[in-house]
């Protein structure tokens, strides 16, 4: 399979990611690993809880990878996102992209992470050293909703563009 995507409550594996995209015709694998930072806007962070709508997140990952394949043909993708609570330095996401040459894998990997941040239904709750926690602000999915390809056939107006 040229696209593999997962949401997982188990620790994410870089080795699995690399093995999933390796291809004898490809000379490059680019990886992105997201980890929990110990500081955010001046507050000391002890960990993050990741809340995920699993079905729609995996659907979004797949759509994003398909778009990337359209932009950079002959590329392979692995995306895994963690669901649950991680301590500082825990791995929240691994993206691996392979391609015949390095430029495509760099560019496609960047595209995938930037789109995931804007479009995948995932939320972060930061935990601080003082015992407090906050849900972080994010990017509204309103635009995604208005461009949804799903139609009930009974919309009040031409809602699907």
């Amino acid at each position: 399979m040229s696209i593999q995507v997962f949401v997982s409550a188990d620790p994410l594996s870089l080795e699995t990611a690399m093995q999933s995209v390796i291809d004898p015709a490809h000379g490059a694998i680019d990886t992105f690993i997201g980890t929990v930072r110990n500081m955010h806007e001046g507050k000391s962070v002890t960990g993050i809880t990741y809340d995920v709508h699993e079905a729609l997140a995996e659907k979004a990952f797949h759509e994003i990878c398909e778009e990337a394949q359209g932009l950079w043909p002959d590329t392979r993708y692995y995306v895994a996102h963690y669901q649950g609570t991680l301590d500082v330095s825990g791995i929240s996401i691994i993206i691996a992209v392979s391609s015949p040459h390095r430029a495509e894998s760099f560019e496609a990997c960047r595209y995938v992470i930037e789109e995931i941040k804007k479009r995948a239904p995932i939320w972060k709750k930061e935990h601080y050293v003082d015992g407090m926690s906050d849900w972080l602000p994010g990017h509204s999915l309103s635009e995604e909703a208005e461009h949804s390809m799903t139609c009930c056939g009974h919309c009040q107006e031409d809602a699907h563009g």
Partner: protein
Amino acid sequence: MINYSIKCFGVFRQFGDTLCVTVDAGSSVQQIKAALVQQLGEQHKTLVEESVLANDNAILPNAYILQEETPLSILPPVCGG
């Protein structure tokens, strides 16, 4: 009238795992969101407006009409990665 059970994600979890609203049959997503604002209070109007409703397969446009009881989720602004 139809009762919708709406699963909460992200910041909506402050209200519990699910929210329940009752609206007329044939209501739009926008009308269900308005019912949510009425239930949660005007102080949450911006949050609800910036959020979207989804079924198990797709995010739903505001004009989408729901004809029957179906599980829904409310998805606030996202910040994965």
